[in-house]
């Protein structure tokens, strides 16, 4: 059912955890209980032999997913609760689909980490928790699922909730709620269960409904130039204001060339000319020439870093590579900048499925998480992820593939 809350910004929630712990089933259950499935989608749900419904069919729409009973790719489904709109992002739990899990996680502001009550923490529980931390998803709800398979045993729940909290704490994360559920039967998902009388906390939906949509942090002006358009004798700099605001007449510093300029004109999409703020996609005219995609207009009094080397924590996604790399391995992307990059050194290296440190630092293998030192072919504008995520997110891509994703820790000599 769609309500008036539909005109506000949705909360984007990704569902992660080990394969078969019940991610797709929980999402299907939420959509079903919310009345968000169409008649056709409801008819499409498969009934199991014991009469219960296979809710995973609501999101696993690919033929291969249904035949193999797995989620291959991330699915994004909108739905509206009584208080707010959501975008629900399913994530595959199989290790070979980690890039799809990450694609979902990088578009979320909140995560539900699902743990199977009978199986406990497994490989992808660790790995997904670490990857959430790596891409900056800080709000995590832990759902201890399949409580029906352990007779809604309070002790089992307490033990697993504790173990999960220890895991999250060890990587610098924490949960804001832990809920004992059965996605298949609907306990504590939308409706409070009478089979967990010992549990007094919120249901999944109650816990999510009260979360604020992440507030935008105030930050000095950051406007990465996305494209340049010649129009009516003016050079329009197209882009999105990532931080702060921009008005006609204000001074800006142009990076990485390090030059001062003044804003002549700000044209908003709706025709306003008085300025633009974070999130807006205006066109800017400045009194300087020769600008191009990748240049960044910033507040002259609050500069980001302009560096040729940086310390970065990355998740390595494709094949293995020896370190240092021979020359550039691809291009590093930060905001709209693309700069050829080499990996100079590995400072620390971890096995993402176990969180164990790997002593060998002369290579990176697929699914490793590592702190590395990058050398850029020319100066690049960035900030630490802690200071400002839009300029602290980095990907490394070859012409064919995304090789790595991570966050900036700091500049490096």
């Amino acid at each position: 059912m769609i309500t008036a809350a539909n005109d506000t910004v949705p909360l984007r929630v990704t569902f992660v955890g080990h394969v078969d712990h019940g991610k797709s089933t929980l999402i299907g259950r939420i959509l079903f209980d919310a009345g968000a499935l169409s008649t056709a989608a409801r008819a499409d749900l498969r009934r199991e032999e014991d009469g219960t419904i296979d809710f995973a069919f609501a999101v696993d729409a690919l033929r291969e997913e249904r035949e193999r009973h797995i989620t291959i790719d991330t699915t994004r489904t909108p739905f509206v609760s009584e208080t707010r709109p959501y975008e629900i992002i399913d994530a595959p739990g199989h290790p070979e689909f980690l890039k799809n899990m990450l694609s979902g996680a990088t578009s979320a502001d909140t995560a539900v980490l699902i743990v199977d009550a009978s199986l406990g923490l497994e490989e992808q529980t660790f790995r997904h928790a670490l990857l959430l931390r790596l891409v900056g998803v800080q709000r995590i709800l832990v759902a201890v699922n399949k409580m029906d398979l352990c007779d809604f045993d309070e002790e089992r729940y307490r033990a697993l909730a504790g173990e999960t909290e220890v895991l999250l704490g060890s990587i610098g994360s924490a949960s804001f709620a832990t809920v004992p559920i059965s996605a298949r039967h609907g306990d504590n998902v939308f409706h409070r269960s009478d089979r967990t009388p010992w549990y007094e906390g919120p249901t999944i939906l109650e816990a999510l409904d009260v979360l604020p949509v992440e507030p935008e942090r105030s930050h000095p002006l950051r406007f990465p130039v996305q494209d340049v358009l010649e129009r009516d004798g003016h050079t329009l700099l197209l882009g999105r204001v990532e931080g702060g605001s921009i008005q006609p007449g204000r001074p800006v510093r142009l990076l990485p060339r390090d030059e001062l300029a003044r804003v002549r004109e700000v044209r908003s999409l709706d025709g306003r000319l008085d300025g633009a703020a974070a999130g807006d996609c205006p066109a800017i005219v400045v009194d300087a020439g020769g600008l191009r995609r990748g240049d960044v207009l910033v507040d002259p009094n609050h500069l980001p870093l302009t560096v040729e080397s940086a310390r970065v924590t990355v998740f390595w996604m494709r094949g293995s590579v020896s370190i240092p790399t021979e020359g550039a391995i691809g291009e590093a992307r930060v905001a709209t900048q693309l700069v050829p990059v080499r990996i100079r050194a590995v400072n620390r290296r971890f096995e993402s499925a176990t969180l164990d440190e790997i002593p060998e630092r002369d290579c990176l293998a697929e699914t490793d998480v590592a702190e590395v030192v990058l050398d850029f072919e020319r100066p690049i504008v960035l900030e630490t992820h802690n200071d400002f995520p839009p300029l602290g997110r980095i990907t490394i891509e070859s012409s064919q593939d995304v090789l790595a994703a991570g966050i900036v820790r700091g500049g490096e000599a």
Partner: protein
Amino acid sequence: VTTDRLSRLEAESVYVIREARARFTNLALLWSIGKDSTTLLWLCRKAFFGEIPFPVVHIDTTFKFPEMYAFRDEWARRWNLDLKIARNDDALSRGVSYETHDALTCCDQLKTVALKQAIAREGYDALLVGIRRDEHGVRAKERFFSPRDDAFRWNYEDQPAELWDHYHTGREEGDHFRVHPLLGWTEIDVWRYTQREGLPVNELYFSRGGLRYRSLGCMPITKPMPSEARTIGAIVDELESTDVSERSGRAQDKEELDTMQKLRALGYM
């Protein structure tokens, strides 16, 4: 900072549209004349302040509603579009039509093959397409930037990673990209935005004699639904209380459970 949903969606789409124009050398917009791609077209006009700096392609099966052709020609003129019409004349001269062939064959020949011909002729390396995730379960799996090989296949089992808004545009020789700026919009968002922006609306979407079209396709396989909605406001009210899916009037989707997936794997939009 704006927290209004439509402005956020607009900004997201404009960012994606500009990214496509910046990263590709021969971009085009696919305009089906329906509400979604008309919204996309409007967003392209706004992204580049009135003039769209790339061609607008209509894949003409010749089986569209007369009201759609009239709408196309009027607004192509008023918006000064570089309109290209792509038609599979070879198939049409062989007599491919809904009277003699099944819907899957017609879609493949008159849409997919017509588009392949246009790509071969014009050398497009990327196409802006107005699909939305909420249209269909399989579409919910789409990326904003989605590569297709030279046979138009969508490799949905091994899509490239799409991290934050760092859209990857690397491709093999012969591949092209589908770019989907409206992925995050719902059907109701499109109507609310159409109303907010004062966009023209094809009369087929409004109730006539107790029936209206919710989705526009080829005339022989597109059925109207019972409705009294004669304004955009009434359409929004109607959609807020229905649980029938949007494409239920499109016959090609119903022939088989996974027809949509087959069509998309073959390169159908």
